[in-house]
């Protein structure tokens, strides 16, 4: 642009993180807003795209890394977290993001969340929770409400949904928040805070499916009923109260930070660096790796 505005005295604009690849999501999908909020958060964080590794699983939402200019890795169903952790351990200087749907995070890959939590590995995990399997055309998901009728539960589901917030709080996570595609500025702020948090940050995002969602105008409905935790006077240092509030998942739509540990454990990646520094002081020659095996 010849008559472009002078650049602002800041390094990054949201569009710096937008790739040329156009989303294939259905028009009206909540994920568009999540993506937009993420661009905002990344601009605010100010790390260049090439220092960001963005990992996802499989599902509609897991297409998201390709729509950013970061190094992306669209992996296999349910395994984004282990892969993201491998990246972070291999190169702790990277900003590592991880995203996926509720099926990815709480069904097929549910076993990985607890372990990322207990390592307090410094990455941000965004679950785009739409209570449905969209990519495979509308089957029951782990967060689908009891009784939901879908193509695989045509007479209504017989089970309670997972409560992602309560699960992750129960695992002992140090940062647990919820946002919604109905409040993009709020979501951008939450994502930014999650990225800045030194350790594992879990962000559940209510990101409705317009094609298979129960109500086609869920975002409007969410906008009407969402309540910010801040407005409720919730102290995010209060873990027990956070759990109490999280129990309302599926009934109330609370947004903001449920819990932020004021004194989190050191991160796994930091401890790895320290151990490498301590043990690596002698810097042995790999060519002599067998010397210690000589029987003298």
């Amino acid at each position, binding site marked *: 642009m010849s008559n472009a505005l*002078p650049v602002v005295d800041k390094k990054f604009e949201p569009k710096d993180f937008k790739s040329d690849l156009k989303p294939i999501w*259905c028009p*009206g999908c*909540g994920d568009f807003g999540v993506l937009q909020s993420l661009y905002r958060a990344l601009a605010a964080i100010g790390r260049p795209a090439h220092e960001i590794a963005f990992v996802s699983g499989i599902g509609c939402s897991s297409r998201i890394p390709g729509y950013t200019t970061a190094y992306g890795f669209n992996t296999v169903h349910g395994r984004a977290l282990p892969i993201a952790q491998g990246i972070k351990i291999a190169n702790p200087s990277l900003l590592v993001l991880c995203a996926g749907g509720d099926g990815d995070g709480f069904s097929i890959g549910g076993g990985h969340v607890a372990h990322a939590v207990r390592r307090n590995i410094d990455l941000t995990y965004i679950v785009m929770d739409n209570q449905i399997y969209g990519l495979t055309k509308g089957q029951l998901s782990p967060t689908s409400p009891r009784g939901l009728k879908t193509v695989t539960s045509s007479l209504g589901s017989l089970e309670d949904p997972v409560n992602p917030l309560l699960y992750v709080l129960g695992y002992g996570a140090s940062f647990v928040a919820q946002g919604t595609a109905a409040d*993009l500025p709020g979501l951008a702020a939450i994502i930014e805070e999650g990225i800045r948090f030194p350790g594992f940050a879990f962000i559940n995002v209510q990101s409705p499916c317009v094609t298979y969602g129960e109500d086609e105008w869920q975002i409007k409905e969410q906008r009407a009923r969402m309540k910010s935790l801040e407005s409720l006077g919730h102290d995010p240092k209060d873990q027990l109260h956070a759990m109490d509030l999280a129990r309302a998942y599926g009934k109330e739509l609370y947004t903001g930070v449920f819990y932020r540990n004021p004194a989190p454990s050191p991160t796994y990646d930091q401890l790895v660096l320290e151990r490498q520094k301590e043990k690596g002081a002698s810097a042995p020659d790999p060519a002599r790796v067998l010397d210690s095996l000589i029987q003298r």
Partner: protein
Amino acid sequence: MTTTRGIDFAHLSLKDALDLAVLVEEEAQERYDEFTHQMKTHDTPEAASFFAFMSRNEKKHGDELRARRLELFGDAPRSVERAMIFDIEAPDYDQARAFMSARQALTAALASETKAHAFFVAALPAIQDPKVKALFAELRDEEIEHQKLVQAELAKLPPSEDLGDAFADEPVAH
């Protein structure tokens, strides 16, 4: 959902106000581009061409404002940024739908213009600088013009049923 972040309307300078106005147009233009692409991707050509039309409009407004800014302030550094605004004139993402009719597309655009108008109306009382006040009043009134423009387009449309995806194929599993 129209939101701003970190804008001090009381002390907004004319340069900042112009820059902000440009950013508002840019945001709207980009969103209409996104919508155009969404509609093209999802076989909704009428809405696509309307959103493309809206994008061109927003670009035109943006260019005019940008020219004024450059004329008045040259390349003096900018101190406002995109992160300060959110969805001022850009249609909300959940307005878009596959197979939406031209009428629905226009209605979505009209809602955005109304939203933008409301933004300038709400901002005006706080503004102290008379030049900025004048600019915002001008922009507010322009939104009215834009609304009229969209309404005129709406009027041109034959009365149609919004059939949505009634005759479309089922979505495809991946």
